[in-house]
């Protein structure tokens, strides 16, 4: 798994790549929690899944956990770049009912920043 984080105003942009399953879930969870702790001004999170080849419920659980953290303070989470296969899993999980999907990072950041 590869993880890249950028802070853009009040938004945290997270670019994920590789396979997101049980083997990397703890690392991803810890990294995102540390970034959120370091950047208390972050209100919204944009997750770019463009480089993700595989995700299952372990990876989706990490996203849901961070969504729960920011939504408590009125924050929102946005999804961009999911491949058809990854998008299908995200959609089946119900996450697209609570997270908005955008066609590009720029569009998502316009709403999130």
């Amino acid at each position, binding site marked *: 798994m590869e993880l890249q984080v950028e802070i853009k105003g009040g938004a945290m942009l997270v670019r994920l790549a590789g396979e997101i399953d049980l*083997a990397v879930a703890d690392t991803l969870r810890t990294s995102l929690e540390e970034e959120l702790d370091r950047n208390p001004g972050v209100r919204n999170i944009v997750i770019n899944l463009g480089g993700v080849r595989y995700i299952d419920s372990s990876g989706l659980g990490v996203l849901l956990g961070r969504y729960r953290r920011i939504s408590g303070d009125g924050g929102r989470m946005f999804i961009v770049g999911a491949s058809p*296969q990854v998008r299908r899993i995200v959609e089946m999980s119900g996450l697209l009912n609570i997270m908005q999907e955008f066609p590009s990072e720029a569009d998502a950041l316009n709403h999130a920043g």
Partner: protein
Amino acid sequence: MEPVNRMRVEFTSLPANVAFARVAAAAFASQLDFTLNDLEEIKVAVSEAVTNAIVHGYENSAGGTVVLAVEIRKNTLKIVVEDTGKGIEDMEKALQPAYSTDPERMGLGFAFMQSFSDSLKVESKPNAGTRVTMTKVCARKASSPAGR
């Protein structure tokens, strides 16, 4: 009589082996004429079953053994994932979508397994282990009886 093609592997209950299990199962399954989409579904179903074995069966301890057995009979793939961990106390609850004992987990493991297979059977005994059996029929006929 139709030959049956089988494979069986056992591995330590380590998170790193989830990827191994799904890739091994999908590689074996590819002897049938499954579509790429079907193979992706098989990967997710196997990952969820193995993840359950590690996280719930062995409570994230690396001391357990997970067995993955896959069988091709005619155009049907049968996948068995088995552990000898703590088992499931309340099967009805465990099979409910979005039920999880861990707030960091989605509780969708069985829902994904059910969606991505044609049949799902879960057998479990508290303190004895859990055996998950899934089947998936390949819509396109393979070019030889036990696979391509």
